[in-house]
């Protein structure tokens, strides 16, 4: 379980998070909706210690990661995989080397075992293992995003954090990524947090959803009731800003 309690974070004079409170249950896919630049990614980065909140706690399996020193963070990060907004592949390495980058440094595996792992995780994200020798620049943006996800999955995390998974993708590819997130959650039983401004993504993947507004998380509920919520803030985002 991942739990945010009164999480505050500022950058200079700009207070981005003003008391985030939410609990993400095991096996659940939780979506955080909100416009760009509102602090959604900051919230995710607090879970893996890339950003340290000034106040409040973020607990993963009961352990407050805010208090875990940087040298001990790898223990948390092996449990919590993060998929970044951009594919962030190492462009001097092949797909295979990217996928096993973390794995080969944490586990002593033979070449054959590594090949099997690559084939398995590429299969999980819907890619043909034959692309494993290709360089990232020879893949489409959607394929690069899938390879980034495969690299995270190779470490078999219990939790998956997705930062704007459908940003920059055409509607068809975005839909396939949404379906992939939902499939992985069902198949692997991982707990996921998806931050997005894509309403379709919420509809496809989320068990629950909340809206970030003015540094706090509002209207946390199931998607079917969320989209019918009469709150002016929510309706303004869903049918005002989001439609722009």
């Amino acid at each position, binding site marked *: 379980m991942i739990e945010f309690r009164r999480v505050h974070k500022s950058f200079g004079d700009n207070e981005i998070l003003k008391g985030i409170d939410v609990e993400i249950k095991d096996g659940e896919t939780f979506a955080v909706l909100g416009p760009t630049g509102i602090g959604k990614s900051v919230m995710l980065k607090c879970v893996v210690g890339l950003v340290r909140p000034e106040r409040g706690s973020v607990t993963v399996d009961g352990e407050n990661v805010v208090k875990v020193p940087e040298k001990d963070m*790898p223990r948390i990060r092996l449990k919590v995989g993060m998929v*970044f907004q*951009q594919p*962030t592949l190492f462009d001097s390495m092949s797909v295979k080397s990217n996928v096993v980058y973390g794995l080969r*440094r*944490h586990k002593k595996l033979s070449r054959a075992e590594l090949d099997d792992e690559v084939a398995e995780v590429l299969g999980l994200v819907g890619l043909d293992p034959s692309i494993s020798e290709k360089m990232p620049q020879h893949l489409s943006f959607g394929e690069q995003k899938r390879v980034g996800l495969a690299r995270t999955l190779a470490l078999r995390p219990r939790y998956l954090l997705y930062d704007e998974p459908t940003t920059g993708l055409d509607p068809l590819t975005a839909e396939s990524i949404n379906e992939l997130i939902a499939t992985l959650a069902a198949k692997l039983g991982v707990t996921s947090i998806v931050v997005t401004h894509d309403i379709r993504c919420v509809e496809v993947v989320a068990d629950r959803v909340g809206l970030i507004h003015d540094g706090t998380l509002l209207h946390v509920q199931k998607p079917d009731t969320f989209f019918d919520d009469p709150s002016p803030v929510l309706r303004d985002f869903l049918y005002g800003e989001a439609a722009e």
Partner: protein
Amino acid sequence: MRDVVVNILEEIGGLFTFLGSVIVALVRGPFQFRELVYQSYRVGVQSLMVIFLAGGFVGAIIAIQFSYPLEMLGADVLLGGVVSSAIMREVGPMLIAAMIAGRIGAYIVAELGTMKVTEQVDVVRCLGLDPMTYLVVPRFLAVWINVFLLTIFGVIVALVGGLLVSVLMLGSNPYTYWTNAVALIDEAAFIYALVKGVFFGLVVATVSCRKGMLTEEGAVGVGRSVRTSLVVTLIALFVVSYFLSSILRIMEHFAEIGRMLYL
């Protein structure tokens, strides 16, 4: 003025702190030997031709510059010794290190800086790995070792360049040039070149890796880091060279006194 002094002190403090964290990461390990070999190929082997050309012309320029005043003084037989000594003790290592700072230093800053602003450094952390161990230490060691080796290579090429220009263009007698060079190049000249190679490598490695890892704000930030890295490296090279020359000169002086007393 106060701000300038504070900035300089912050920069010096930052460099030593960064150097300390590199040493900690190196000691803690695990050591990335394959990455070190790969980075050594990129920063070292691929720089050989550039250093060959730069070193050759450094020697040629020094020979031309010294030939006229020595000829005026009627001391042109000393050309080989003066040129070789100047190349080994000061000008060679300094100019070649500056050349390397421009090529290798900028490459390292741009690479690490781009990895930082495109969140690849964060990816490494999210994979449960320490970026200092996996990204910085192999590059740091590759730069340090290769700047040292390239400085030595460059000095040798500069010596040959000085010899060729002196003999082929300035009409020096090769035997006189060589005899005089051997007479004036003592073990101290070798120590100057070696010690400066070690410290110049340390300067280029520390400044470039640190500036790369401190990069922020996208492509503009990468450009800014490359520019400031080059400025800081060149200033640091001059300062380090001055102190090394002073210290080595004092040690050389004491060694001479000791030798005289022994005799």
